[in-house]
């Protein structure tokens, strides 16, 4: 993966550190975005709605991966931090704040709450930290449900579609551009952080916290920064979610959501931005694929679909276990292997 093409030389370190070192990669990426941008012209609203869900999931997964994969701080409360951002953004939006301000506001509230629940990480590690973030999940769920004045309680909270300078993003195709823009920004933020001083400090904390301390990393400050930035971005994802679904309820941000974000980063690849993206796509598409399977089978074998539908959760769990056993480094490893293979093709050595 650290392999570079023969004949690729760098004249400055800055160039070598660039996100996409080769021209080929730049072209591929530009093409990819061009296709994405014209998607709404061709795709129906069902496909666009899935794309929107994937984009929001990408922000959630990338931000969890920053905390858990990069910094090594296990979190079972990520779904709830999304919820904090969702409710925050919804409340700001309903008070009349412009869309982006509401989004940032939701992120800021989530960052604050995330940092508070990150304080135990100074003392707790691994499974113990996981339990304390589980507590965060349960406490926040309780707040969503019982702070009726602010969150609407069990009835939920309606939110208007985002409107910017009089233009309303009220269809799947329109809001897609908005969500895509925010997602790209969030992914860039995480990528930048990972390749610079704080990102290296996060990995240092994950890999060997004692020597991290001895090279001058303030463990407390950087763990809190990891929690803060991760839950800020989760909050932004939540804010997008609130404005996209236009109706939020506490059960949308349950334990199940936290688990599926964990599944995304495990399946995609711990500590990898690209892996988070793969994981988000995979886990968002999984139920859709199962739906497709059952509906196409319903003609042939109606009994079978009756069995598969209630098994969705089981299939989900099974996939996770299989990945942990056979591909613990996630989809991103497969991708790298494939890429390395084609780079050298046909000279396999």
């Amino acid at each position, binding site marked *: 993966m650290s392999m570079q093409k023969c004949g690729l030389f760098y004249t400055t*370190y800055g160039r070598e550190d660039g996100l996409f070192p080769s021209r080929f990669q730049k072209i591929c990426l530009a093409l990819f975005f061009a296709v994405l941008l014209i998607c709404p012209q061709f795709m129906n609203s069902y496909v666009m709605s899935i794309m929107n869900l994937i984009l929001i999931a990408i922000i959630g997964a990338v931000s969890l991966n920053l905390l858990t994969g990069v910094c090594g701080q296990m979190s079972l409360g990520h779904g709830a931090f999304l919820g904090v951002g969702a409710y925050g953004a919804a409340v700001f939006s309903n008070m009349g704040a412009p869309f982006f301000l509401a989004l940032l506001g939701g992120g800021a509230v989530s960052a604050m709450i995330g940092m508070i629940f990150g304080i135990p990480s100074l003392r707790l590690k691994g499974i113990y930290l996981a339990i304390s973030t589980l507590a965060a999940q349960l406490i926040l769920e309780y707040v969503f449900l019982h702070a009726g004045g602010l969150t609407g309680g069990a009835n939920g909270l309606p939110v208007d579609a985002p409107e910017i300078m009089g233009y309303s993003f009220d269809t799947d195709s329109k809001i897609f551009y908005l969500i895509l823009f925010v997602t790209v920004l969030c992914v860039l933020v995480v990528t930048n952080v990972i390749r*610079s*001083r704080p990102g290296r400090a996060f*990995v*240092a904390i994950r890999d060997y916290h004692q020597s991290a301390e001895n*090279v001058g990393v303030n463990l407390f400050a950087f763990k809190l920064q990891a929690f803060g930035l991760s839950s800020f971005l989760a909050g932004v994802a939540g804010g997008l979610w609130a404005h996209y679904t236009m109706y939020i309820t506490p059960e949308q941000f349950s334990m199940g959501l936290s688990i599926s974000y964990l599944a995304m980063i495990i399946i995609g690849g711990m500590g990898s931005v690209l892996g988070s993206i793969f994981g988000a796509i995979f886990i968002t598409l999984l139920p859709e694929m199962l739906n497709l399977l059952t509906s196409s089978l319903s003609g042939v074998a109606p009994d079978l679909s009756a069995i598969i539908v209630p098994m969705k959760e089981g299939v989900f769990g099974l996939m996770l276990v299989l990945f942990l056993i056979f591909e613990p480094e996630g989809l991103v490893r497969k991708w790298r292997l494939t890429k390395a293979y084609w780079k050298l093709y046909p000279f396999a050595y």
Partner: protein
Amino acid sequence: MNGSSPLLEVQEVSLTFKNVAALSRVSCSVQKGSITSLIGPNGAGKTSMLNCISGRYTPTKGKINMSGRELSGVAAHKRTGFGLARTFQNIALFRGLSVLDNLMVGRHSRLDYGLLAAIFYLGKARAEEDRHRHRVEEIIDFLNLSPYRHQIAGHLPYGVQKKVELGRALAAEPELLLLDEPMAGMNLEETEDMARSILDINEEWGVTVFLVEHDMGVVMDLSDHVVVLDFGRVLASGTPEAIQNNPKVISAYLGDDDALYKGR
């Protein structure tokens, strides 16, 4: 090297775990510009001493001064600011980072930008990365680590990892380098290479070295001054020649007077 002022002064330091006295009223000093070695049998308290200096352990009693400033009460992560860096007896690298990034983390406290600048990766962050990257590349060249620059540290052979750890400590550009058994587990060639590097670091870069090492050949060759610990107490200290001929030291090494020459 004689007559200069002590860079590090350990005064009557004691360290007690529940019922074990790891260090008892240890006093010693490291002269500026010297290579000073700390030797002693297994369990003598050498690593404990380094841990007290680097801030992992807090001495139960006593004081440690660096350049005349007291270290006690200073958090471990702030001690890089005093010019301290160290390596570990058991490799303690950041396994998931490349060699280059390990050294860049080593420079963590010298890079002057925070999370916000990193998020946008513009101006200051970019300039700082570039500037420090140059310095780190020099260290990589100096230690002959160039072939491994972009390799993940955890995948490298043991001897190379030991060197990367030295590089990481060096990247902080310390005044005082604490080395905990840098030659442990190395073959003859690697040992000589490491000894050469330590000498160069000391002579060319002017870094003071406080070395814990079991290989007596290396210790006697490199050191200006040797401190011997036994059961957490200072048994003797002096020049390598004086130590080699000290009967107390010889008997502490199990009466095997060859041990001092052969290494262990």
